């Protein structure tokens, strides 16, 4: 088991290295091929008002004329030990982990990302708990009352949940609950949990529900299908033959097996979400990673996009790792050599 974990950890690190190379290529090499020069990049730092000499000088100082491999090496080195930046107004130190300087704000990217993380974390954790509980509960009830009015109704709602994007459901929810009934926050505000938990929840409840609705629907359908399959297994009949109460048969024997694939998908979904719930954050103007990323893309702020991409990749790779390890815990047949 320990060797397996170490092997998977090394694999995860290699994966992140590959992701970093690919994203670096996409953002810094491909534009060159399309005719963007080193001075164009330098231009983004110094602004259009600068003279041609200044631009060339800054490009040189930032090492934008160096071979791509050297530039990539410098970027990686920055992540581990930090690096020095000089874009014309003197040398500035960017401490590790340094994901570069923003073109626009001329500030290191990493502290920005750290600032946004709690917002996305709050959104992801709250929403995922809601959708997991709601989705599984509805899925189990639907499976047990297959063909009933509840089952049909729930599956229609689930279908709409899967089909309707957050920028639709979110806006409907906002106009209904925030502007119509005035019982929820109108969006745009975020209060850290440590400052005021009640306000934190008040501001997040609508984004949570919007995001949860989308995923709960998918989980309800998955749970229902898994439950229907499991309750037809021979070992469920054995459990009944022992004289177990039907409720124990369902929760202990049925749900346990039906939930295994759910655990896998749940881990991956949360991992992806930690990299920013782009649509939901934008609809509710939450200053999380997703909103940060869309802002960076709109401003073509490459260092920000790079930093965000690496952070999101890190969460997804880690989620994969955790899910694999969890799988071995949940299903004893997947014991790893």
């Amino acid at each position, binding site marked *: 088991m320990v060797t397996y974990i170490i092997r998977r950890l090394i694999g995860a690190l290699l994966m992140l290295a590959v992701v970093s190379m690919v994203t670096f290529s996409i953002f810094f090499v491909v534009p060159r091929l399309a005719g963007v020069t080193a001075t164009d990049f330098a231009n983004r730092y110094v602004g259009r008002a600068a003279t041609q000499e200044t631009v060339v000088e800054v490009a040189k100082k930032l090492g934008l004329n160096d071979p791509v491999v050297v530039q990539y090496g410098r970027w990686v080195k920055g992540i581990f030990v930090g690096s020095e930046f000089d874009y014309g107004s003197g040398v500035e130190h960017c401490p590790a982990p340094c994901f570069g300087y923003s073109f626009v704000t001329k500030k290191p990217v990493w502290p920005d990302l750290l600032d946004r993380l709690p917002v996305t974390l709050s959104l992801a954790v709250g929403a995922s708990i809601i959708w997991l509980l709601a989705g599984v509960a509805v899925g189990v009830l639907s499976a047990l009352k297959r063909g009933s009015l509840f089952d049909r109704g729930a599956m229609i709602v689930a279908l709409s949940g899967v089909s309707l994007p957050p920028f639709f459901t979110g806006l409907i929810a906002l106009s209904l609950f925030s502007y119509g009934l005035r019982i929820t926050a109108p969006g745009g505000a975020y209060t850290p949990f440590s400052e005021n938990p009640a306000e934190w929840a008040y501001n997040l409840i609508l984004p949570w529900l919007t995001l949860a609705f989308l995923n709960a629907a998918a989980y309800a359908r998955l749970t229902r299908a898994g439950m229907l399959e499991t309750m037809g297994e021979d070992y469920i009949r054995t459990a009944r*033959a022992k004289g177990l109460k*039907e409720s124990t048969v369902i929760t202990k024997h049925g749900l346990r*097996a039906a939930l295994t694939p759910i655990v896998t998908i749940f881990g991956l979904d949360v991992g992806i979400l930690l990299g920013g719930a782009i649509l939901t954050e934008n609809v509710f103007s939450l200053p999380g990673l997703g909103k940060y990323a869309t802002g960076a893309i709109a401003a073509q702020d490459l260092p920000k996009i790079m930093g965000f991409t690496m952070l999101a990749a890190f969460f997804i790779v880690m989620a994969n790792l955790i899910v694999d390890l969890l799988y071995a815990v949940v299903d004893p047949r997947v014991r790893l050599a």
Partner: protein
Amino acid sequence: MSDNFLDVKNLKVHFPTDDGLVKSVDGLSFALDRGKTLGIVGESGSGKSVTSLSVLGLHKGGRAKISGEIWLDGEELVSATPEHVRRLRGKKMAMIFQDPLSAMHPYFTVGAQIIEAYRIHNKVTKKVARKHAADLLGRVGIPQPDRRVDSYPHEFSGGMRQRAMIAMALSCDPELLIADEPTTALDVTVQAQILDLMRDLQRDFNAALIIITHDLGVVAELSDDILVMYGGKAIEYGSAEDIFERPEHPYTWGLLGSMPRLDREPTERLLPIKGSPPSLINVPAGCAFHPRCAFEGRTGGKAGTEVPELAETEGGHLVRCHLPREERRAIWANEIKPNLESA
């Protein structure tokens, strides 16, 4: 009321489906006492498994329409509440299932599954139940039971899994034990061991045992009585001696002919029954077996029109056949038996 420990009277289990009514069991009666063994024999789809699941009440609440009477130790089960039958399951009556790999939960240890079965009906601590589980595993011949208690089903061999399944069924000393194809999924050598084990255990526990199988060889040595089923009905029912020494139904003859035997020359062919089991929705008119019966022509045309009655021929030996008794005996003595013996 009934004097027998288990008395099934005119049991019918019908499943309504979109294609029509499936009459899985259609008017079945049999009886069994403590310490005795009944073998129920038939092809796939003859209704033998459905019968056993009905006795345990595992069809209740489902789509099945069940009628008739099942008396167990003076209690009628068909009309009893599902909750009442649930309390009897596992304790008064237990079941050994066919394929122990799929019949045991893959996520729980063998010990945990036996402990669970024991603690449903006995208010004991986990520690006591664990000791009991290990004892049972040792009793059914699993080596190092204290250690194997913590193994998962997939870590056992097929034979060991079936032993563990038997241990689970025995955990609450059931008075009625139903084994549904207990050896079908096993190697031949292991089959013999499991059958020996079941015989020993039945003697020790003095339980009433029902063995359900498609293989006459399995029930040959274990059973006191044998019930041969075809198309949801009993077609021959008698003592093991009746069935093996004086069988009177052409289908039973077919089963005997298709049974491999070690005392035969290996070059000899088996004598299979032609055709395949009947559809339970459109059961053939008249005798359900007549389309496959070699002697159908000797019934004077009744085979395809009239359903034969299950009638006593001699001393509790029941046969459902249109052929006159003397003719059946003559066919067995002159045409079938010599073939089986010379072959």
